[in-house]
């Protein structure tokens, strides 16, 4: 059984087959990946976080988008700079431009041959860079600053030129490095004596002091460069920038530069990395220069030497050390002529037991197989190496989310900006161990431009900041305690108002109804009601009449009161055979209730004088079906007996066989259904409507169009029918209570609305104030 997977987020255990944590829903595999934090020397992996974007807030997505655009613009800019740099390679490099200027000052019409050939060399160096990147070789031509030639050359340009030996092309052999070097590869040892003696061989080499005699003596020495660490700071990643500044105690780099006269031995003694220390111990004195090749065999190269070191060792073992260093160095003044720098007291703590080297030892060291870049720019190299070695920063492990956020482009801007160095030598030590091309240039030799500063702070536009502020405000408002929508006093006042209204209405209606008051005058007889009375009067005796009960029990009081007088007159005058039909669920019971309560004086019997068909389902379709085929749609009564064999149903085959259709409804919609569905099928027979007061006005068009023969609407309609028939009934009994209560309601609404309007206006004015 596989072990359970512990979620890194919530710490709970999950079955191994799960991909996501069953508790926090975060992916478990991703958590496994998180174990692979960035370690020193490991190239950060650019993670794809685009799939997370949809769940990000809008402002964050916009920020990411802007960051993306900025990165693209930066890349484009760097690419353009790289192209510009390539173009500069075609043109005379800046360094040569300075030389040209110097030559102009010296009224020299032509550039010396060796300088002209220098360009070839540089091209050759470029070619080498393609496959074997040497940072200083790549960059030194590109240096745009005219004030830094010495530093570009590691101070070597200031050296004396009197003893420089030249090859057949006029260039010093250290610059051309060509035929002699190639020849050396074929015939290692014999050509060695023909070369000038390297200052390394004599131990008189003084690197990068600035006090060395200029090998172009006409040119005044440029002012001392500012602190190299500061100059190079811009090219350094943050972790390097955070190291103690050079002017602070312990800033060894500053000490090295400022002293200027520090000899290589003391320099290396204190700052050499391990692999160089090993070289030191394995090397032999420089006096035995001719025997260097032989001694190189004695080198016990450490196993962890970088590849390029091994390659150099194997390829150049037989090469004389002088050639590696350049013959021009041989006539350098002896070290005694140069002020001695203060001795480095001791080796740093992280190189236990390592003592400063003497000059001879330094010479031995450089007699060994050092790479070109180290030979040429040895003074510059320690500017960083010691810092890296002495960095108090412990190798950190970055969590994956930091890794994901780490902008690779900003970490290695120069690596991308230099297309000629797709890969570089991997760093072997320090926090960058294992990284290739992370340190693309060395300070002083690279371009002096300061890359864009990338702040650790979130760079957000004003819009994004405003959005973020809005989000903060929303989040804050979420947790703020909200006052209740209505305070207890407001709730109490609302309830009190409801109860007040209820009590007033109940008391009024009850008292007036029980008193039997008839003080209010009866309503006028509307025209549609008069038409309904006329229609009723015109119905033949003993004719079948269909009465539709389509109202709810809640409105039965109003509709029954409105219809009672009309049906009473109908029965009283013509003794019709009634068919009761309902299109509401409670309709059959309401129909029975109507006949028993309002028409009880006529002693109409079910099955004999009237028949209750019951509930007609189906809405408009049911109405239409009944109008077309009543015998099919409603074959039985509520008791289950056959309707159409009973006296009220005899002779009825279609709805047109009824002498009249009376619809009792509380909604205009129901009346409209009957008018529209059954009206066309009644063949001109009258259809009368008895409705509630709310539906009356909506049915006026059907009265005007003649689709309905008459309308009795609400209590007023019923009361007017009673008034016309001179038979007081329900409507007249309700009429006083209705009228007086309505007046009180009008007053309550008027006073209450006026009060609320004033209060509302006052509240608004207070709010504005």
């Amino acid at each position: 059984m596989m072990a359970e997977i512990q979620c890194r987020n919530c710490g709970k255990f999950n079955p191994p087959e799960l991909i996501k944590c069953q508790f926090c829903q975060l992916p478990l595999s991703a958590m496994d990946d998180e174990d692979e934090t960035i370690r020193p020397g490991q190239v950060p992996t650019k993670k794809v976080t685009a799939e997370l974007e949809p769940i990000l807030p809008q402002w964050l997505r916009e920020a990411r988008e802007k960051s993306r655009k900025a990165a693209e613009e930066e890349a484009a800019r760097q690419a353009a700079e790289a192209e510009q740099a390539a173009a500069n390679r075609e043109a005379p490099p800046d360094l040569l431009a300075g030389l040209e200027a110097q030559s102009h000052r010296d009224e020299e019409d032509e550039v010396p041959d060796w300088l002209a050939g220098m360009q070839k060399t540089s091209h050759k160096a470029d070619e080498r860079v393609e496959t074997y990147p040497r940072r200083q070789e790549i960059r030194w031509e590109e240096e745009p600053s005219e004030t830094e030639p010495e530093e570009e050359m590691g101070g070597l340009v200031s050296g004396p030129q009197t003893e420089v030996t030249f090859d057949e092309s006029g260039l010093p052999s250290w610059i051309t490095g060509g035929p002699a070097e190639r020849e050396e590869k074929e015939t290692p040892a014999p050509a060695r004596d023909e070369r000038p003696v390297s200052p390394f061989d004599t131990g008189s080499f003084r690197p990068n002091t600035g006090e060395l005699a200029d090998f172009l003596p006409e040119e005044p020495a440029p002012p001392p460069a500012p602190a190299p660490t500061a100059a190079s700071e811009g090219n350094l990643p943050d972790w390097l920038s955070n190291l103690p500044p050079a002017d602070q105690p312990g800033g060894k780099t500053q000490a090295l530069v400022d002293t200027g006269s520090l000899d290589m031995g003391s320099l290396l003694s204190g700052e050499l990395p391990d692999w160089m220390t090993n070289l030191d111990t394995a090397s032999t004195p420089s006096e035995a220069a001719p025997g260097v090749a032989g001694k190189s065999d004695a080198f016990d190269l450490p196993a962890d030497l970088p590849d390029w070191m091994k390659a150099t060792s194997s390829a150049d073992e037989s090469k004389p050390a002088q050639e590696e260093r350049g013959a021009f160095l041989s006539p350098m003044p002896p070290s005694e002529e140069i002020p001695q720098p203060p001795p480095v007291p001791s080796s740093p703590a992280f190189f236990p037991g390592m003592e400063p080297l003497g000059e001879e030892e330094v010479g031995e060291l450089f007699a060994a197989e050092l790479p070109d870049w180290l030979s040429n720019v040895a003074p510059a190299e320690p500017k960083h190496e010691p810092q890296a070695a002495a960095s108090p920063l412990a190798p950190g492990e970055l969590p994956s989310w930091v890794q994901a956020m780490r902008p690779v482009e900003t970490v290695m801007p120069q690596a991308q900006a230099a297309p000629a160095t797709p890969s570089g030598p991997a760093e072997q030590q320090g926090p960058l161990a294992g990284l290739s091309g992370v340190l693309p240039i060395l300070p002083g030799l690279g371009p002096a431009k300061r890359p864009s500063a990338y702040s650790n702070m979130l760079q957000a536009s004003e819009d994004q900041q405003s959005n973020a502020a809005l989000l903060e405000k929303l989040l804050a408002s979420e947790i703020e305690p909200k006052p209740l929508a209505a305070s207890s006093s407001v709730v109490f006042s609302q309830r009190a108002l409801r109860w007040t209204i209820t009590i007033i209405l109940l008391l009024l209606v009850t008292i007036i109804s029980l008193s039997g008051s008839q003080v209010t005058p009866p309503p006028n007889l509307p025209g549609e009601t008069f038409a309904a009375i006329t229609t009723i009067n015109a119905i033949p005796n003993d004719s079948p009449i269909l009465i539709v009960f389509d109202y709810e029990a809640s409105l039965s009081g109003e509709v029954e009161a409105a219809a009672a007088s009309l049906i009473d007159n109908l029965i009283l005058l013509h003794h019709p055979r009634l068919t009761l039909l309902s299109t509401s669920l409670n309709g059959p019971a309401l129909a029975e209730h109507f006949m028993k309560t309002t028409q009880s004086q006529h002693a109409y019997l079910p099955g004999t004088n009237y028949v209750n068909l019951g509930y007609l389902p189906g809405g408009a379709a049911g109405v239409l079906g009944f109008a077309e085929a009543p015998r099919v749609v409603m074959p039985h009564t509520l008791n289950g007996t056959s309707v159409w064999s009973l006296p009220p149903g005899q002779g009825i085959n279609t709805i047109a066989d009824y002498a009249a259709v009376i619809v009792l409804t509380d909604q205009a919609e129901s009346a409209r259904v009957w008018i529209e569905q059954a009206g066309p099928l009644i063949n001109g027979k009258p259809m009368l409507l008895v409705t509630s007061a709310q539906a009356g006005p909506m049915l006026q068009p059907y009265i005007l169009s003649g689709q309905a023969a008459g309308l009795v609407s609400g209590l007023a309609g019923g009361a007017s029918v009673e008034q016309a028939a001179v038979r007081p009934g329900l409507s007249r009994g309700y009429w006083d209570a209705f009228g007086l209560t309505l007046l009180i309601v009008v007053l309550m609404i008027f006073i209450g609305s006026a009060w609320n309007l004033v209060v509302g206006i006052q509240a608004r004015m207070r709010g504005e104030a």
Partner: protein
Amino acid sequence: MNALIGFGIVLLAALLLLGMTLLRRKSPPPVFREIAAFTRLRRAAGLAVEDGTRLHVSLGRGGLQSARGASALAGLALLRRLAEQASGSDRPPVVTSGDAALTYLSQDTLESAYRAAGAVELFRAETGRLSGLTAFSYAAGTIPLARDENVSASVLIGHFGPEAALLTESAERENAFVLAAADEPATQSILFASVQDPLIGEELYAAAAYAGPEASHAASLQVQDILRWLVVLALLAGAAMRLAGLP
């Protein structure tokens, strides 16, 4: 003759609807005029999902066998959108209706919405309820819902009578957002007095178009506009003919 005129109107509307729907599918979604009620409804529905309260949709008691059924169908279209939006809520939306057939259609609509949202396993049939078969029994069955089911947004859309005032009153007592739309003019006047966000007139039938980008819904609004202009022209022509003494 009247039947043929009616058939012509229906045929015209059908052709317009089909044509407009096809055109709508190829064009960007239209911009409707702002109706504050729908804006608040979207917010209230989102808040209901966020704070774990319930969304209540009341479809009224318009039976499908009558002309009232059209308002119920419009309510179902809106329900579909809302249910899809609220399907991920801890408390799924509850739907009440006063007609049995409408209840089953509401359940079917809810299930379709959950399926479309990929959460069909969260669908519960009892969230589509029949509250009562008469007006006030429906109101009586629905009123306790706002208090018992932790409803924060209540949507009344369909056919209602005056009993709608009781429903809105109960919902507002629970401080719930209420959007109300009815097809009856009398009910609309009641809702105007009792609801903060009433929909007047045919705005009820625009609810689905405001709630979602369905092409047919936008097209049906355009068809309504075209037909409305035709009706206006017909009324003016009829009035002019009557004034001119023509039959």
